[in-house]
C-alpha cells in the first residue's frame, strides 16, 4: 500500500475517532448532574435570570440539537464560551497552551537526556549495581505521585535551600521591570529572541522544579523501555556474531543494537507526550503554572462543559496525530515495517 493511501485511510479513521470522542464527552458532561445556567449567572440568580441564561446557552433545546449546534460551530472555529471564565474557549486554550507546551517539552527533553543513557547503561551492565539503580529510577519515576514529588521539591529547593523559585512561570515583578514581547508565547524562546536575558534566566529557574516533577513519569518509562528493548536486541544472533567478530562493545551497542532498539522507545515517548498534556493537571496546580492543565482541572471542577469539550478534543487530536506521525515515521525509518 502506498504511503498516501495509508495516510488518507488513517486520517479518515482518525476523524471517526474524534467524532466518537466528541459525542461521548458531550454526553458525559451532560449526564453529570450540573446546572451550567446557574454557573453562568452566579449562585444567587433569580428565576428569570436563570431562564434567560438557559436561552443564551441553548440549554432549552433538545440534546441532539445542542450537539449539532456545538459541533457545527466547532468546525468553523467557534469552540463556544467558557461558562466559568466567560471567554471564548479557543482563546482561553490558545493563551494557556504555550505555557503547558513549554513545560512539557522541557520535561520530555530532561526525560530523554537522562532516561536514555541510564536505560542503555542499565541494559549494557545488566545485573550490576548500575542496572539495579536504573531499575529503581524507572520504577520510582513511574510510581511516584507527581503532586507529592512536586511539593517535596518545593519544600527542599524553594523553602529550605532557597535555590529555586517556589511556583509560577516567571516572577511577575521581574516581568514588570523587564517587559517581554510576546512572539511565540514560549517564555524561553521569546526572551532569547528579544534579548531579554533577565526574563530568560528567571523563566529557566522557574521551569526547573515543575519540569523535573513532570519528567519523572516519561523518564521512568524511557529507562524501562530502553533497557527492555536493548536487552532483547542484545540477545539476538547478529549481535552475537558482531561480538564474535571481535568488534568493540561500544560499537556493537552504539552502531548495531541501539538502532534497532530505539523504535519502541520513540513510540512510547510520543504517546507520553500526549499523556503529559493530561498529567500537567496536578503539576500545574501545585506550581501555580498558568497552563492548560490547570485550566482543565478548574473546568472539570465546575462542569464547564464547553471548556471540557475543547480540551478533550485537543488532547484527543494530539493523541491521534502523534500516533499517525510516529507510525509513518517508523515506517519511513525502518523499511521492514509495512504500512497496512
Amino acid at each position: 500500500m502506498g504511503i498516501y493511501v495509508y495516510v488518507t485511510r488513517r486520517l479518515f479513521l482518525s476523524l471517526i475517532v474524534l467524532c466518537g470522542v466528541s459525542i461521548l464527552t458531550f454526553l458525559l458532561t451532560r449526564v453529570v448532574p450540573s446546572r451550567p445556567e446557574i454557573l453562568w449567572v452566579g449562585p444567587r440568580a433569580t428565576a428569570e435570570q436563570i431562564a434567560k441564561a438557559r436561552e443564551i446557552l441553548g440549554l432549552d433545546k433538545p440534546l441532539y440539537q445542542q450537539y449539532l449546534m456545538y459541533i457545527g460551530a466547532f468546525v468553523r472555529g467557534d469552540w463556544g464560551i467558557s461558562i466559568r471564565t466567560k471567554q471564548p474557549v479557543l482563546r482561553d486554550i490558545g493563551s494557556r497552551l504555550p505555557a503547558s507546551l513549554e513545560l512539557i517539552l522541557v520535561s520530555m527533553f530532561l526525560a530523554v537526556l537522562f532516561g536514555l543513557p541510564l536505560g542503555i547503561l542499565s541494559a549494557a551492565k545488566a545485573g550490576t549495581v548500575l542496572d539495579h539503580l536504573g531499575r529503581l529510577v524507572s520504577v520510582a519515576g513511574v510510581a511516584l505521585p507527581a503532586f507529592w514529588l512536586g511539593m517535596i521539591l518545593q519544600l527542599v529547593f524553594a523553602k529550605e535551600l532557597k535555590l529555586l523559585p517556589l511556583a509560577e512561570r516567571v516572577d511577575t515583578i521581574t516581568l514588570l521591570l523587564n517587559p517581554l514581547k510576546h512572539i511565540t508565547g514560549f517564555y524561553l524562546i521569546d526572551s532569547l529572541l528579544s534579548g531579554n536575558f533577565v526574563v530568560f534566566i528567571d523563566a529557566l529557574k522557574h521551569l526547573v522544579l515543575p519540569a523535573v516533577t513532570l519528567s519523572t513519569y516519561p523518564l521512568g518509562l524511557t529507562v524501562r523501555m530502553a533497557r527492555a528493548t536493548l536487552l532483547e536486541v542484545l540477545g539476538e544472533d547478529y549481535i552475537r556474531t558482531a561480538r564474535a567478530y571481535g568488534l568493540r562493545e561500544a560499537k556493537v551497542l552504539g552502531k548495531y543494537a541501539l538502532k534497532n532498539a530505539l523504535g519502541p522507545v520513540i513510540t512510547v515517548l510520543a504517546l507520553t507526550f500526549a499523556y503529559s498534556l493530561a498529567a500537567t493537571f496536578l503539576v500545574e496546580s501545585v506550581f501555580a503554572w498558568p497552563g492548560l492543565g490547570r485550566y482543565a482541572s478548574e473546568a472539570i471542577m465546575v462542569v464547564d462543559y464547553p471548556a471540557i469539550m475543547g480540551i478533550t478534543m485537543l488532547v484527543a487530536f494530539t493523541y491521534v496525530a502523534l500516533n499517525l506521525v510516529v507510525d509513518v515515521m517508523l515506517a519511513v525509518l525502518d523499511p521492514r515495517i509495512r504500512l497496512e
Partner: protein
Amino acid sequence: MSRAFLLALFGIVAFGLWGLGAQPNVAVYVYNSEVMIFWDPSDTYSNEIIAMNNMYEQLIRYDPLTDSFQPVLAESYEKSADGLTWTFYLRKGVKFHTGNELTAEAVKFSIERTIERGMGASYIWAPVEEIEVVDRYTVRFHLKYPAPLDLIASGAYAAFVFDPEYSDHEWFAAGNDSGTGPYTVEAWKPGDYLILKKFDDYWRGWEGKHFDKVIFKVVPEPSTRRLMLEAGTADYTNMLPITEIEALKDNPEVEIVTTPSFQNLLALFNTQKPPLDNVLVRRALAYTIPYQDIIEGVRFGYARQSRGVVPYGLWGYSDRVKQYTYSLEAARFYLAQAGYPEGGFKLLLTHVAGDEDERRVAELWKSTLAELGIELEIRGMPWEAQVELGQAPDPTKRQDIFLFYWWPDYPHPHSFLREMFGTRDEILFNFTYYSNPVFDELIARAEELAGIDRTEAINLYVEAQNILMEEAPGVAIYDLKYARAKRTSLKGYVDNPAYPHVVFWYECWREE
C-alpha cells in the same frame, strides 16, 4: 578541588541569585481562583470584586464595625422622612480613568444600566423607581417603597459608577475599566495574573505611602500560597485551610488577621417531609448539634456559635434572640413527645462536595444523632446538583437537611430571613419550604422600616428570629470568622466584612 568544580559551583550560586535586587513598590495578592470572571461593572457578582473595588468606587462605603458610612464619590447625602427620596451630593473634580469628569448624569446612567442589564446582584436596586439628575453634581433616587438606599448604594456588587462614554459590554469584557478608583488595569493574563497600576489623577491624590502597582496572582494550591507568603513573594492571601493558618501562626514574618464575617453555616430542615414536618422533631434536631465541638474541632476556634440566623456583627444580630445548646436530654424529651422515643428514622443531609468543613460538621453531627437512634446519610454534591435536588417538584423526594453557607449581597439582615424562610411561590433558596404569614408580615415591615427607623426594624427582626427559633425550620450553626494571612510588613490593612476578600490597596503600604 578542580577548577571546573569551582566554576560550576559559582555558576549555580550566580544562577540562584540572579534577578534578586531592589523590588519596586508592588503589592501581591495571591488568590485561589480566577480573579476576573465578570469585567462588566454592571454584571459583577463573583471573585472580581477583589480587584473591582480598587478600580471602581461606589457613592458611599459602609463600615459595619462602626455601623457608619464613609463618603466616597458622594460627599454627603440626605433622605426624606418617609425614606422614599434619597439625595446624594457628588464630589467635584473626580476623574474617570478615561479622563472624563464624574457627574450626576454618569451616576444615573451607571445605576440605570446595571438595573436594565438585570445581571448578577442588580436586583438590590429593586426599590428604585426613578433616578433624577437635580444638577451637575446632585443626584436623587425616588423609591417605590422605603428601603435603606445607603446600604444598597454602598454594596460590594452592582453599585459601581463608571464612565457612560466607555460602557460597551464587549469593551469591558476585553479587559478594560472606566472607573474612578485609585488603580486601573495595566495588564491581564487570564488564568495567570491581573496587574493594576496607580491612576495618577485619582481624586484623593498620591501623597503619603501607597503602592504603585498591585498584582493579583492565581494560585490554586493552598500550600503553595502559604509558602509564597512565607517566602515574601506574596503580601496577602484571603483564604487558607485552617491547618495552614495554624502552621503560620508562629512565623513572625506572617500575621493572621481575624474578623467576624457575615457568613454563616445553616442547616435547613425540610418542613414538608416527615418526620421533619413535625416541629417537635425539628426542635429535637436543633439540640443534637454539638456546637462547641464543631467550632473547636472543625474550625479550630475560627467561628462562633450563631444566635438566630443573622450573623454576629451585622445589624439585626441581637442577644435577645434565643440560642439552642447541645443537649441530648432535651433532644430525647422532644423526640419522645413527637412519638419517636427510640429515634428509628433516617435523614438525608446534602452539602457541597469538596467543602471539608461542611463534611466534617456533618460527620460530627452524625455521631450524636446515632446516639439517639437516628441515622444520617451524608451526601456531598456539586452545588448545582444540591440545588436541583432541593428544588425537586415532589417535596418528599428532596433532602431532609440542606447544609450550606449564606452571606448577604449587601449588609442587610433581610437576605438571611427572606431568602431561606420567607414564603416563596417558587423555590430559589427557601430549602426549608417554610411558610408562616405572621413571620412574612414581620420581615416585610422590618424591611420597610430599615431605611427610616433602624432601631424599630431591629426589634422586628429580633421578633421574627425568635419565631424561627421556636418553629425551628432550620438552624444556623456557626458564624464564620475570616482568618486572613498577610506579611507582617504589610500595613494599613483593615478587613471589612461588607466587602468580603477585598483589600483596599490604596489604604495599604509596606514597611520594611
